[in-house]
């Protein structure tokens, strides 16, 4: 469980994080979204006890990060932005060191290292120096460090940033595998990632929380959510006919005989549109119900905030 209470950070006169308050429960995977410089990393650095907040505090499993930093840090696994690792060490020696600092010894230590190693699949590079590893492997080693002590809370700062599409998919699958019973918070600026792995999303910009809800709810805020895209032949005056249908707000003309019908409310209008096309005897070539555009919503929520 994570709880942020009025967390704020100010660098000089610049307020980077303003009064951020939210709770994340076990089992939730929270996607932390925001444009660059929105305060995502700063918030995570405060949550993990790396940066002291200017005011407010954060609790990790009930332990105040300011008053009981060691207790809080014990329950927390953290992947910092860019997954910094000691280049001269090998995954074997690094995980051995981390296990020691996490008070893991003997057979527990071996079992935890084996499990982390197989979860992120780094057995093949076990004795290679970290500086010689590819970006994907470095990221996996970083994840192994974060989850080595099987923490209740995982904080992952841009876990897939800079990886190729296959590596991104692997890391997302890994996060999903780990998510049962854990509290996970991950930052990203890839909107699709939030839908793929998160149960909840928070958007911050200029240090303020601007949206807090499920990824589906986020998409539903899109202007084009439930819009019907339609290409027809043999239709005369289709635009005005479509615009006159019940529940339709407006019609965009995307090209010749190609329209986008926007709904007035949240209710689906696809039936009304296709029924009308059938009755009017149009030859329908293409119908598509738009699920909504996350980047539109993102832009709408965050623009003008920076």
């Amino acid at each position, binding site marked *: 469980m994570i709880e942020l209470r009025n967390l704020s950070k100010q660098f000089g006169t610049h307020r980077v994080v303003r009064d951020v308050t939210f709770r994340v429960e076990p089992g939730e995977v929270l996607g932390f979204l925001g444009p660059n410089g929105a305060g995502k990393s700063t918030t995570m650095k405060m949550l993990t006890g790396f940066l002291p907040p200017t005011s407010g505090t954060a609790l990790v499993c009930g332990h105040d990060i300011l008053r009981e930093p060691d207790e809080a840090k014990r329950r927390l696994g953290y992947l*910092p932005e860019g997954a*910094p690792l*000691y280049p001269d060490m090998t995954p074997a020696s690094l995980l051995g060191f981390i296990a020691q*600092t996490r008070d893991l010894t003997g057979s527990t230590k071996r079992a935890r290292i084996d499990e982390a190693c197989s979860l992120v699949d780094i057995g093949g590079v076990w004795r290679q120096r970290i500086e010689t590893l590819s970006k994907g492997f470095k990221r996996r080693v970083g994840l192994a460090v974060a989850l080595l002590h099987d923490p209740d809370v995982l904080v992952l700062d841009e876990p897939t940033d800079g990886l190729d599409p296959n590596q991104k998919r692997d890391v997302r699958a890994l996060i999903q595998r780990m998510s049962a019973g854990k509290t996970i918070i991950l930052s990203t600026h890839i909107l699709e990632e939030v839908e793929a792995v998160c149960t909840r999303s928070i958007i911050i910009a200029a240090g303020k929380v601007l949206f807090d809800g499920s990824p589906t709810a986020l998409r539903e805020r899109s202007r084009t959510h439930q819009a019907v895209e339609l290409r027809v032949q043999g239709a005369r005056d289709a635009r005005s006919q479509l615009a006159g249908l019940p529940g339709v707000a407006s019609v965009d003309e995307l090209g010749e005989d190609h329209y986008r019908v926007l709904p007035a409310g949240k209710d689906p209008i696809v039936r009304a549109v296709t029924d009308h096309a059938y009755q009017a005897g149009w030859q329908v070539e293409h119908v598509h119900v738009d699920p909504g555009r996350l980047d539109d919503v993102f832009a709408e929520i965050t623009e003008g905030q920076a």
Partner: protein
Amino acid sequence: MSAFAETLQRSTYRSQWFRIFKRELRGYFTTPVAYVFLVIYLLVQAGFTWGIGRLYEQSNATLYPFFNYHPWFLLFLMPGLGMRLWAEERRSGTIELLLTLPIRAGSAVCGKFLAAWTFFGIALLLTMGEWYTVAWLGGPDHGVILVGYLGTFLMAGAYLAISSCASALSKNQVIGLVLGVVVCFSFMLADIPMMVSAVDALGVDALTEAFLQMSFRTHYDNLLRGVIEARDLVFFGTLIGAALYINTALVQLKKAS
């Protein structure tokens, strides 16, 4: 919480520095740093001892020529050893990894410092050949030599603590090196007449005396005479402690910038 659990918990915190110490010390030998440093140190000290110090020609069975030049070349070697301690950690971002583990900044500072100091101790042990040579050529006062080694180790520790502190000030290792050399150099020169008369001009005798007492050279020379005096040990000990204390504060202050 029971007293036992509390003691147990405290002892784990106490040993975090030791885990850092082990990792760091091992780190020296998995990179070329250790070997480059050892070779340079051994060559430089031999050059000063035999070439400039003329240990052989002076026909005295002492290691004075060996110890006498140490304050000078350690002035550069110790900041060289210390410059990477925190600058590298900050530049590569691994400081974020390190300090979000259940490790206090103070433990990390001590662990890193002690590893570097121990590493220098190993280098110093490798000069024992000179001790053996002098013992073979004549009958030196072994007590004086032993205390000389102790003094050298302590002074190197003081240089190193200052350098570690300087390293925490900037992400740039070169800046750390230059700052370290400059600060160490001021401690070296505290007893030269120009500095002393400048302070003396202020007319406060206690200040002049205090200033003289800050000189590395004064305390080191005391030890080279083979006399172990509490104030010399306390001086180096206090200086190391103070530098590490400031170092910890600097790490906390600068870690995220």
